[in-house]
């Protein structure tokens, strides 16, 4: 295995922020949520990311406020530690080492200094059995404390964090698993179990999904698979317990939450409707519909004024006073799959991929923030399981970013396929894409590839489909309508073979279409079949043309582990190599081509130029599983690395998506250093919430600061000059009434600032320096004059 110390893989594009229940701080100003290996802190009013709490070495599995100090927060992680943080300043206060992977954490005000953790059963470390344990956190001055005194509270609990809840004033804890509700009373040290029948009759699924206890009364609310909510009362004995049933959800109840005063019960599920049940008047309920995606967690601020809901599309919604959505914190949406490739929007340089169902998301890689969602399907999304919905399966931008083409399809079981091809024009005014043309059923079968011609003269789109044809679409200019629409220009095929991929050459003069084993090369100007290339065995899976100096080469990857490179000038095979290439990606700014190969369950990466036999860079065992999507994103600033191994990262950066939907990229050491430096510069005063007012005021203050700096800076620079400093000191410290005339002083002053040209230090920036000096001189002169006048 080749290891390059200078290049390493880094995670990009937002971790899951909907993994665990978020926490709102006591003053309702901040929202804390577990995000991968750190805890992110957001402002609730502006939805801005404030900072993160870094320290855990594995997935963070729970965040709770310290009940005894509301400025501190506990976090637990699968790395077996519980950490105590000061979240306002992002300071790690203490680390408690537990030694087992922790799945969730519970605290109660009554049990000070004790945290309740869900850990795997000690005996069966690998099995799926979990227990709830109480851990006394030792008081000690050390930063790292070992806390290994675990006392089991409940055995066999669910690892799901919503499956346990503290009751009134921490007197009991209720946990659910499967068909059983277990309540443990701390005073009596006794637990009661209540079971439901499996209830398979009438399609009812009685299994528990979540539990929440009323904060003031003895009442437990449990959610169930079939959408029912049960309110348990009188459960401090085995026999005469009662429950009442509430039913509104048609899918499983994902989460339940009582408001701090216990007046309302909130519930959410796949319907993406937040339901408020009025406690004691359960037939009265309010709804907050169309929140975008299935609700996974609900949290309420300690004063009850803010609700926040986590959604399955990696989003946290903050809801003000029960009715109004006030802020949305959106991460990179990771849906069920990415059918569109990773694409870079040429205009905004944002990464474009499937977002919410039926949407394309534009994600800024630079700011790690979602820019916007483009609704492609434009249909009401029905939140119901088992429905065939329209999905965006292909998307493509033209070279300038003026046009976006999307393909959406919906396959019904046993019915024919519905496909729509949509073309969107970029509207300068609204800075967004506007639907221009919809083509229903552009092909009779699935569309396998879609590309715009990169040539600047014509805007042409080519689609290939499993129905054995490829079609070229052109923008038909219509004189009487002010806007043109798209129409089919050419339908091509080759011996009724199914085309699987296509590629345009860099200048758009050639189009190659892979028809199973045969590669055909067409001229888009005349639609003439220029040549056919074939290198059996194996169907062609991916095709790409070389760029710049290598534009005479055409590369093809076949299913039978062959990577071929044809020379288009001689129409002959230049070289071929046995490689199981799953993906070929060209860098638009250089000759480099990245090939992802899958070998024995993991992926390898090779970066090479078609003209050179040796790869520029190779990395074995990149990640497990096949890499299906990758893209070269152009950099804002070119890196100036001269080292051969990292040179390919100079112009653009390679992003790729693993099977587990992790967005990864390659980064060099120099780049990381630079990023670190810039982040330090950008550090702001975090204790103040970032409100518009603050921004305004902060800007003003910043300007003032800058001014001060501008005033102090020249001094600093001046002190560097040995002769200048003395002269100016003399000049400024002499009383004004004994000074000679300003015109005389000026000449002397300027002479004192001049530097002999032989000085080697300023060789490069001499002119810049001189201009700066002159400005300085004029400033000084003005100051001087003012001084004299005032005297």
């Amino acid at each position, binding site marked *: 295995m080749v290891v390059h110390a200078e290049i390493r893989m880094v995670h990009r594009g937002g971790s899951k922020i909907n993994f665990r229940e978020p926490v709102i701080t006591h003053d309702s100003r901040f929202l804390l949520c577990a995000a991968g290996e750190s805890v992110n802190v957001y402002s609730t009013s502006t939805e801005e990311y404030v900072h993160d709490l870094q320290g855990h070495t594995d997935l963070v599995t729970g965040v709770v406020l310290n009940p005894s100090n509301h400025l501190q927060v506990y976090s637990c992680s699968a790395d077996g530690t519980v950490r105590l943080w000061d979240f306002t300043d992002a300071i790690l206060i203490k680390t408690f080492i537990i030694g087992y992977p922790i799945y969730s954490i519970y605290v109660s005000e009554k049990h000070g200094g004790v945290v309740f953790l869900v850990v795997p059963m000690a005996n069966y470390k690998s099995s799926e059995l979990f227990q709830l344990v109480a851990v006394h956190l030792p008081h000690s001055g050390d930063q790292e404390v070992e806390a290994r005194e675990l006392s089991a509270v409940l055995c066999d609990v669910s690892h799901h964090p919503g499956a346990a809840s503290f009751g009134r004033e921490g007197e009991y804890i209720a946990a659910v698993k499967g068909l059983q509700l277990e309540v443990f009373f701390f005073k009596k040290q006794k637990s009661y179990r209540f079971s439901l029948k499996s209830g398979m009759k009438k399609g009812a699924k009685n299994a528990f999904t979540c539990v929440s206890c009323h904060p003031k009364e003895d009442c437990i609310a449990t959610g169930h698979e079939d959408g029912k909510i049960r309110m348990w009362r009188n459960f401090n004995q085995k026999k005469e317990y009662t429950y009442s049933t509430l039913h509104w959800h048609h899918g499983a109840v994902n989460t339940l939450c009582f408001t701090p005063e216990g007046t309302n019960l909130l519930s959410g599920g796949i319907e993406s409707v937040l339901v408020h049940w009025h406690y004691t008047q359960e037939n009265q309920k309010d709804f907050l519909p169309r929140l975008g995606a299935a609700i996974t967690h609900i949290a309420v601020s300690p004063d009850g004024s803010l609700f926040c809901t986590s959604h399955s599309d990696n989003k946290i919604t903050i809801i003000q006073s029960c009715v109004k959505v006030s802020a949305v914190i959106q991460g990179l949406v990771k849906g069920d799959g990415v059918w569109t490739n990773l694409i870079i929007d040429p205009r905004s340089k944002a990464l474009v991929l499937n977002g919410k169902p039926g949407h394309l998301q534009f994600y800024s890689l630079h700011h790690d923030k979602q820019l916007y969602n483009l609704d492609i399907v434009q*249909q*009401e999304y*029905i939140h119901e399981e088992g429905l065939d919905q*329209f999905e965006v399966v292909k998307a493509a931008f033209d070279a300038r970013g003026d046009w976006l083409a999307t393909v959406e399809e919906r396959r019904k079981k046993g019915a024919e396929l519905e496909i729509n091809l949509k073309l969107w024009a970029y509207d300068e005014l609204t800075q967004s894409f506007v639907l221009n043309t919809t083509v229903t059923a552009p092909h009779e079968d699935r569309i396998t590839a879609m590309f715009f011609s990169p040539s600047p003269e014509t805007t042409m789109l080519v689609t290939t489909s499993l129905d054995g044809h490829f079609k070229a679409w052109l923008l038909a200019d219509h004189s009487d309508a002010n806007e043109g629409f798209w129409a089919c220009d050419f339908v091509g095929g080759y011996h009724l073979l199914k085309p699987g991929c296509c590629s345009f050459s860099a200048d758009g003069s050639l189009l190659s279409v892979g028809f199973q084993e045969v590669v055909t090369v067409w001229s888009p100007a005349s639609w003439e079949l220029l*040549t*056919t290339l074939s290198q059996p065995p194996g169907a062609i899976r991916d095709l790409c043309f070389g760029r710049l100096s290598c534009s005479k080469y055409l590369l093809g990857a076949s299913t039978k582990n062959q990577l071929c490179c044809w020379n288009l000038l001689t*129409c002959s095979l230049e070289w071929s190599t046995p490689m199981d290439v799953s993906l070929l990606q060209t860098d638009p700014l250089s000759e480099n081509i990245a090939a992802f190969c899958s070998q024995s369950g993991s992926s390898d990466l090779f970066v090479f130029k078609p003209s050179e036999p040796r790869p520029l860079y190779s990395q074995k065992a990149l990640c497990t599983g096949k890499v299906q999507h990758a893209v070269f994103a152009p950099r804002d600033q070119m890196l100036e690395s001269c080292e051969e191994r990292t040179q390919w990262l100079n112009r653009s950066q390679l992003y790729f998506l693993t099977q587990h939907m992790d967005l990864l990229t390659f980064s060099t050491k120099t780049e990381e250093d630079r990023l670190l430096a810039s982040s330090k510069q950008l550090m702001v005063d975090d204790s103040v919430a970032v409100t518009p007012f603050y921004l305004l005021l902060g800007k003003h203050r910043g300007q003032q600061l800058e001014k001060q700096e501008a005033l102090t800076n020249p001094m600093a620079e001046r002190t560097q000059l040995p002769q200048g400093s003395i002269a100016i000191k003399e000049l400024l410290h002499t009383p004004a009434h004994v000074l000679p005339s300003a015109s005389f002083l000026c000449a002397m002053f300027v002479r004192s600032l001049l530097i002999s040209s032989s000085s080697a230090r300023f060789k490069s920036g001499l002119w810049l320096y001189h201009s700066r000096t002159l400005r300085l001189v004029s400033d000084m002169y003005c100051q001087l004059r003012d001084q004299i006048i005032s005297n």
Partner: protein
Amino acid sequence: MASFKSTKIPIYPKLGEKVTPDTLYWKNYKAPVQIKEFGAVTSIDFSSLAPHNYAVTASTRIHIYGPFSTEPVKTFTRFKDTAYSGKFRSDGQLLVAGCEDSVVRLFDVSGKVALRVFKGHTKGVHVTDFTSDCYHILTGSDDYTCRLWDIPNSTELTSYKEHTDYIRCGTTSKLNRDIFITGSYDHTLRVFDARVEKSVMTMDHSQPVESVLLYPSEGLLVSAGGRYVKVWDLLKGGQPLVSLKNHHKTVTCLSLSSNGQRLLSASLDRHVKIYNTTNYKVVHNFDYAASILSLALAPDDESIVVGMTNGVLSIKHRKSPEEKREMVGKQRMQPVYRIFVKGRNYVPKKDDFLVSKPVKSHLAKYDKQLKKFNISKALDTALESWRRNRKPEITVAVMKELDRRGTLKNALAGRDEQNLSQLLNFLIGNVVDPRFTPVLVTATEMILDIYQAVVGQSSVVDRQLVRLQELVEREVDYQQDLLEVLGMLDTLFATSLPRKEVPCPGSSR
């Protein structure tokens, strides 16, 4: 929190002809007035004098109608046999007509008896016309001759016997008193100059010529014969300019619209076609009930008069602008503009406090019901009779939406006889429409699934089901035929395409 997205109603391209200025112009005529004549109407001629009466030659009579009269203002009946070609002189005072009995008669428009009788032809005279100086008459006859007559002393001036078949059309130049053109069944057009002995120009139409027409500039000549209309350039020595073949039966009559921009041709195929004279494309088309023999347009296109073989004379008058305005006035019952924009164009002043009101999006009734998941009600709304009949795309779009939600079956179920027959009626009307077929076939299958248990309980529904079955069977046969035709065309195209060799790297090197 996103708002409800309404059901997308697809916009289908409008089929049929496009609305052009020409269609608007030529559609702006009232319903035709029909007058029954005694026989086939062979000729219609408008007087150039003010009220623009027109002479209609049919059978043994010539009727003169006023512009808006349905009764003839004057009748000439002194013909022994069928009359032909009643023509006004350019001053509107005299009328000339030929007759099957070879005699040409000249009438005073106010009199009854013929002023002059020209005898000399040996067979029926089908063509008569005045020369531009008003003193001579041109006649063309079935005895293959065309002659010029002097009006004052009713003598024959010249006779040309160059045609070798019946002369059935002819016209005189309006600019030169000596030039005239005749067309004959011998397929030729001849241009004569009275000052020379022989024809000065001959053009071959290659079909028996039925009608000739000179452009006002007299540089171009139009001839009609067989299914063809041909345009000749006289200034280039009779060079053919265009040949139009837009009729599928013999073209019998030609006419120019008043401004000379449009050419009209009438044919035995019961159509009148209107051509643009710059590119000779058909811009409009009139249909009539019977084969057309004659056609004339009043000055300024005020009316179109068409005579047919069944003796019906059809007159279409142009709609006057006052009537048009009246029609618009009746429709308009909406509030006037002033009330409509009340307060909307108010420009906020400097110190005004702006209260923004959320724009309430209007949802259609079916969308409101869909929003509340009232699926059956939404389908009922979409099936309301006016929507079903006038905007079937809405009904189909709602069905598609329900299908997407997986609830179409529930919405279709539980309907009573009346409701079901309504639904089946809609299916029968639209299931074979290619725009709606994919959705409606699914709906049909569901209906059959749901209601198969109750088949036979209602005679109305049973009848409709049988009709539906027949319809589907017919459509299947039709599609089969279409596929066969497609296969035939494919073979034809495949044989006609030249085989092109694609260079292959392996074969050449």
